[in-house]
């Protein structure tokens, strides 16, 4: 079975990994442990060794490409397994053909053979419309469901079984029509270190804005210390922006290994009209304000005020207690402000 060639993870401070060159060409034999390709980080160039012995194939990254850690950029096939010419990235058939030719030495690894095609051709998941509706309503990860329905499909009872096994994700009781008691918490931080860190985060192409630096810090902290709704479900983050029709949102990925390049890409996507589960971040500073807490927002909001050297910067959280408890929000906000005061701590997360 072919071995995947991965972009190595290089710690949380490295935001961009650029492929400098391949030291082997597709179709060439490589030996386990010998240098295979060179990458460039903001600190240094690095040789990456071949993870297996075999034929380099299915090369999908070219010199100059910006890469994300743990992405598959090539495969190393065993002798006789590799296609003669570099195949398109999606082809799984060429790998099967030579295997047929080599029938006498067919590998007794059926399970492994299936997984070998996984990074190239993802297996389709069949889930009933009803089950998908329920799963989406409760943020149930479809990949984590066990299918018991007809023809191997995931059906409603499979989602319900998952929800029962994860009581924290059970739907909250229908919202009481109580008087809204939206609270607002505020805290200030000293942006000096943060501005220094912003300089340090200078990438080869794009310098992050101070807002993006705050976002990255908040996202990394959220990955390490999740905020939960009162019903136990984990709250994600979205970037909110004011538009003529109201607020629009860009849901942000939640990953401790998130890097600036990926965050910047997400921030370039088209915002959506709706965002129901999580916390929205609003850039008050872009409007020249220090605190902006729309009272009609349906989700918890964090507003980030102006960030200027030599002045305190403001963070505020406003939410309805039914969406986020004030106690939890307070301790989280205090921790975030603490982190922004001393961003080197982010390295420890």
């Amino acid at each position, binding site marked *: 079975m072919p071995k995947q060639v991965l972009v190595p993870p290089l710690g949380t401070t490295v935001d961009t990994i650029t492929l400098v060159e391949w030291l082997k060409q597709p179709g060439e034999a490589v030996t386990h442990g010998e240098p295979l390709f060179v990458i460039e980080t903001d600190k240094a160039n690095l040789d990456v060794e071949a993870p297996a012995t075999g034929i380099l194939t299915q090369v999908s990254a070219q010199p100059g490409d910006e890469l994300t850690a743990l992405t598959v950029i090539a495969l190393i096939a065993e002798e006789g397994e590799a296609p003669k010419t570099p195949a398109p990235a999606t082809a799984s058939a060429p790998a099967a053909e030579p295997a047929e030719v080599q029938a006498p030495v067919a590998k007794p690894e059926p399970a492994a053979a299936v997984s070998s095609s996984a990074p190239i051709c993802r297996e389709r998941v069949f889930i009933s419309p009803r089950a*998908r509706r329920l799963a989406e309503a409760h943020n149930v990860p479809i990949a984590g469901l066990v299918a018991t329905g007809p023809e191997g499909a995931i059906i409603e009872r499979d989602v319900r079984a998952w929800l029962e096994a994860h009581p924290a994700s059970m739907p909250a009781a229908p919202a009481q029509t109580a008087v809204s008691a939206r609270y607002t918490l505020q805290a200030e931080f000293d942006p000096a270190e943060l501005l220094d860190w912003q300089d340090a985060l200078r990438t080869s192409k794009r310098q992050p804005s101070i807002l993006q630096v705050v976002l990255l810090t908040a996202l990394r902290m959220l990955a390490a210390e999740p905020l939960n709704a009162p019903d136990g479900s984990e709250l994600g983050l979205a970037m909110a922006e004011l538009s003529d029709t109201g607020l629009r949102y860009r849901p942000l990925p939640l990953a401790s290994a998130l890097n600036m390049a990926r965050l910047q890409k997400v921030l370039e996507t088209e915002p959506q009209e709706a965002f129901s589960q999580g916390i929205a971040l609003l850039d008050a500073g872009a409007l020249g304000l220090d605190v902006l807490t729309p009272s009609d927002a349906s989700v918890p909001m964090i507003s980030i005020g102006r960030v200027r050297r030599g002045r305190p910067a403001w963070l505020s959280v406003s939410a309805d207690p039914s969406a986020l408890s004030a106690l939890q929000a307070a301790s989280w906000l205090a921790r975030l402000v603490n982190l922004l005061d001393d961003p080197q701590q982010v390295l420890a997360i």
Partner: protein
Amino acid sequence: MSQMSIAQALRQAIREEMLRDERVYCIGEDIGVPGGFGGAFTVTLGLSDEFGRERILDTPISEIGLAGVAIGSACAGMRPIADVQYGDFLFCMMDQLANQAAKMRYMSGGTIKVPMVMRAPVGSTSRGAQHAQSLEAFFTHIPGLKVVAPATAYDAKGLLKAAVRDDNPVIVFEHKLLYGSKGPRSERGALSPIGEVPDDDYIVPIGKGIIRRKGKDVTIVGKLLTLYRALGAADELAKEGIEAEVIDPRTLVPLDKDLILESVRKTGRLVIVEEDNLTGGWAGDIAAIVAEEAFYWLDTPIKRLSAPDAPAPFAPVLEQLYVPSVANVVQAVKSLF
């Protein structure tokens, strides 16, 4: 309140309507001949003694002729109840029904009404391919016709009375195995459900279905004979812990689709059982409606159980295989769990 068969309930409905409105009359082949059976299935038995042979009007064996008389007299203000000995003979009248009766009101801008009832027995009963068809789907496809299919004595009386009072042509499909016809006209293997029928005047509104059995796990839609197959299957399934909801649409045009959609939104599963042939059939239409309007509530594929795309066999053994059975329904439902 009396216990009666569907044939008796229909007879009572006809009698009451003829007493209520002198424009109502019956027309058909051998429906009033002295010493006859009262039509092929005894529905009009004895009515010619009470109303005379001018209002229980026998015709020569010419379906196109009797359809023409019925439709023409309806246009002229009468309210005929036409008897088709076997539903299969509706094909003989097809131009009269599809091109004339169904379109007259539309093409005349509403000035000509066709308040005609056409009663047509359907179902496979060991009488060969030309006396066995289930024709419901054909006639649901013709705009301008209403189509009802009563499966109980209560509905037979109530729907026939509603049909007589409707100003549009209404086809009433009746199942041969459900009539409860007696004597020489009794049918082998008949179910002949006996039901309570009020003695007073009532109608079952056209366009209203009914839930025959409540359940939460799967919706089974059946009509006429296959309603009873669905109910039998629901009994079997209950023993295994599957609670089936059984729906009898009663009227096919206009269809009470909300009743079906509401049930599927609850259960997430749908099985349709019919005796029509599969292709271009009624079950396919119900499946399409649900797929279009309740897709996100479906938890499993929709199942259709129909007669195969073949003429109805004469041999009783083959006929057993031709019409969906209780076991077929049970098996189809269980495949969804």
